[in-house]
């Protein structure tokens, strides 16, 4: 190989080395600037600037490649390192060809030295670049970004990588309730606890590399899946409260409480028949009605009938179901049926027991089955007619106690308040109901008046005799005369123009007549017009009472009780309650209170740890102290958000829920007894 050819080969090598040096310098500069950006938390656009500066640095150094265009400069670079060439190589580079020069240029192996020099020139830049890259990777704030870069691939920008520096920075929870509940999916960000139906699918997710996280549910490890650029943990809501612990490789923990909601069994109330009954003959039909309720949704319901026959030790049973109804997930409903007792062919001694049963749609832990209380209908035997109480079924409505005038006024006022919202037929119906009670009360007042006059009471309710309308005092006297066959007025002392008997009964008569007006207004559905006469009637009744009430006043002699004689002479025995001590704090409450105080002390040092401790307390309280559990959840959330306004408030709430130590009061005067 000629010297010229060797020189050309060296130029190519120099070009490669210079390019590598420029690249290393650019990398070193970019990485050092990138580390600065991450450490100081500069905005994301500064990452792009870093890249540009790195490229600029490389380009600047690459400018030296221009010098390689001159072969003489390459030869001079060699001559500097091998002076024994005495410019022979420079002369050849200038295009002079001579065997003497060729021999002189090849006489010394300058290319070996040139290669060494080129390698030496790469050592420093390579070391510098490597050091800077290592330094940048070592810095904690940058480390996450580097990891994120690995995870998301080279295409992911540096800005995205920065977001997942903390894989637990954002935790998202999606709750999909069981299909039978027909409830929508719930999404929650950064929850401290998740409340959902047992069997719900819970997906906890976040951004970052799944390999940087570990998870456990009640200490049992759970696997975390990588889903695109984030991680995901799939769980199922257990039947008992549990804690999910997420632990990142940065040493950070995140606790989430799983608080299960138990699907309650349906609640069934049997409305009809109202109570057990005994009949002589089971005939006709029996109305059944039940109210059904469920917290999530009812699937179906039916009445269960059991007929037991026989006596002694020989009994037979028949079971049947009637009025089976599909309820399609409704949360409440009414189940009604009518059973023909004739078709059941009940014999004397037979017992028909019936109840309503409903099932909910729970196909995860259920179905929940609810049933009403059982009613029994028994057919009496002939030989026990004189020993059992035989009631008709369904039972007759118990006759309500006759209402007082004051109560009737209250009912009328209440009806007036609802008047605007009631349809006219319903208003009239309710008004007539009050009118019926007013009629009964008027009859009682009339009975009092006429019995005092020696007459028979007014006609019985429901008889064909017409109800007397308004009466004048003269008419009252006339009736009394007719009833007794003697002149009631004539035998009485007369004072003024009134008999004493009328003077006493006048207020009652006024009440009697006012009730007539009130009753007529109520009959036609005019409660407002009924109220004034009703109040007149009440005032008149009060006057009548006052007229007859006599208070015996005067100073009675002082009574000294003979204690010795009376002591324990009573026939009845009672049990005195002993003086109650202040309740001792429950050990569980005491333990929780102590834990809470420790958590309170921890807030200043490590609020996140304190929040986690509150969540652990919450799991403990979920079973027996729901109010405390709710307060603890609120406290943990406030603590995580560093909400300094809410923290004192929720802390007070937790303390109230915990109860407190009994107050000790000093200075209570003892009872001294006899003055």
């Amino acid at each position, binding site marked *: 190989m000629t010297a010229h050819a060797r020189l050309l080969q060296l130029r190519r090598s120099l070009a490669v080395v210079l390019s590598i040096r420029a690249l290393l310098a650019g990398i070193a500069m970019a990485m050092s600037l990138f580390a600065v950006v991450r450490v100081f938390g500069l905005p994301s656009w500064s990452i792009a600037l870093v890249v540009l500066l790195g490229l600029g640095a490389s380009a600047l150094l690459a400018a030296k490649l221009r010098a390689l265009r001159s072969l003489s400069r390459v030869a001079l670079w060699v001559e500097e390192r091998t002076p024994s060439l005495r410019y022979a190589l420079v002369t050849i580079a200038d295009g002079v060809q001579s065997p003497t020069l060729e021999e002189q240029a090849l006489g010394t192996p300058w290319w070996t030295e040139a290669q060494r020099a080129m390698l030496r020139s790469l050592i420093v830049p390579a070391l510098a670049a490597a050091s800077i890259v290592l330094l940048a990777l070592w810095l904690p704030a940058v480390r996450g970004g580097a990891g994120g870069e690995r995870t998301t691939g080279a295409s992911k920008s540096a800005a995205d990588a920065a977001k997942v520096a903390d894989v637990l920075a954002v935790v998202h929870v999606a709750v999909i309730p069981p299909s039978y509940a027909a409830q929508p999916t719930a999404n929650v960000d950064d929850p401290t606890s998740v409340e959902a139906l047992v069997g719900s699918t819970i997906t906890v997710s976040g951004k970052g590399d799944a390999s940087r996280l570990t998870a456990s549910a009640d200490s049992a490890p759970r696997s975390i899946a990588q889903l695109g650029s984030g991680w995901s943990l799939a769980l199922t809501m257990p039947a008992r409260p549990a804690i999910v612990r997420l632990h990142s490789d940065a040493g950070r923990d995140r606790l989430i409480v799983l608080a299960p909601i138990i699907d309650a069994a349906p609640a069934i109330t049997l409305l009809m028949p109202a109570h057990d009954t005994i009949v002589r003959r089971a005939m006709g039909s029996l109305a059944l009605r039940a109210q059904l309720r469920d917290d999530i949704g009812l699937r179906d319901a039916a009445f269960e009938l059991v007929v037991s026959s026989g006596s002694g030790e020989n009994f037979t049973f028949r079971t049947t179901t009637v009025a089976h109804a599909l309820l399609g997930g409704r949360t409440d409903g009414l189940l009604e049926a009518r059973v023909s007792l004739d078709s059941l062919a009940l014999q004397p001694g037979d017992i028909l027991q019936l109840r309503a049963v409903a099932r909910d749609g729970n196909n995860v832990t259920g179905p929940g089955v609810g049933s009403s209380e059982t009613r029994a209908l028994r057919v009496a035997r002939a030989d026990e007619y004189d020993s059992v109480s035989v009631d008709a079924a369904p039972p007759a409505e118990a006759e309500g106690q006759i209402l*007082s*005038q*004051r*109560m009737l006024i209250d009912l009328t006022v209440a009806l007036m308040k609802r008047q605007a919202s009631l349809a006219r037929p319903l208003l009239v119906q309710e008004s007539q109901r009050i009118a019926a009670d007013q009629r009964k009360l008027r009859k009682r007042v009339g009975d009092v008046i006429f019995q005092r006059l020696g007459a028979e009471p007014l006609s019985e309710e429901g008889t064909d005799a017409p109800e007397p309308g308004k009466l004048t005092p003269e008419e009252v006297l006339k009736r009394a005369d007719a009833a007794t066959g003697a002149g009631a007025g004539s035998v009485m002392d007369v004072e003024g123009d009134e008999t004493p008997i009328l003077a006493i009964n006048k207020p009652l008569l006024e009440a009697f007549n006012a009730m007539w007006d009130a009753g007529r207004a109520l009959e036609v559905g005019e409660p407002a017009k009924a109220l004034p006469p009703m109040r007149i009637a009440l005032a008149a*009744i*009060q006057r009548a*009472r006052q007229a007859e*009430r006599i*208070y015996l*006043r005067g*100073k*009675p002699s*002082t*009574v*000294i*009780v*003979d*204690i010795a004689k*009376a*002591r*324990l*002479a*009573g026939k*009845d*025995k*009672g*049990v*005195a*309650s*002993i*003086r*109650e001590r202040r309740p001792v704090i429950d050990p569980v409450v005491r333990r929780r209170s102590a834990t809470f105080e420790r958590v309170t002390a921890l807030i200043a040092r490590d609020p996140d740890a304190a929040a986690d401790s509150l969540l652990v307390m919450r799991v403990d309280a979920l079973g027996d102290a729901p109010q405390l559990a709710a307060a603890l959840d609120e406290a943990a959330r406030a603590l995580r958000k560093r909400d300094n306004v809410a923290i004192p408030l929720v802390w007070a709430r937790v303390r109230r829920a915990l109860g407190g130590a009994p*107050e000790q009061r000093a200075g*209570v*005067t003892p*009872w*001294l*007894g*006899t*003055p």
Partner: protein
Amino acid sequence: MSDFVFATAQYDSGDWDSAPLVPANIIDTIARYTAIDVAPSGVIVPLASPSLFRYPLIYMTGHLPVRFSSTERTNLQRYAERGGLLFVDDHNHDIDGTFHKTATEELTRTYGAPKPLPNTHPLYRTFFVFDEGPPTTSHELNGWGDDLVHKTLSGVERDGRLVLLYSNKDYSSEWNYHPENKRFLSVDNTKFAVNIVVYALTR
């Protein structure tokens, strides 16, 4: 240990002495059913007097308007703070009567509004058991007064303990007879008074 002394409240307004035989009757009942050391006669305590604080239970009744003086009101408030029980009974048995209207106004100003006591209240189990709540009086059943059978008593509690017990049932009429006449009753209608006294002494 001192004897229990039954105290009747004397207030400036109204007829505070309208049921003069009630104290003797209750004292007799206490002796009849319990071993409580009880003084054979009651005392009359002015509500404005500091001697009020010497008695765990004060009985107050009347027909006429009740208007507390400021001293009476202050005294009653302190009495409640110290654990005393004021038992007020409407001798009119009439929610439209002047005693009820004025007394509830005054008591509300002094204690806060009385609230109905549930029939499960310890008062009804503290000695004799009254499952149905306060025993009905013949005056209610006879239709006197407001013609209402009052299903509950009302009261004000502090720290889980009654400081005011208010009745519209007219126990003052029901119990206002000489204790010697108790022998004519098939059922002693004053037994509820034992519960009130025992409650006041044990709570």
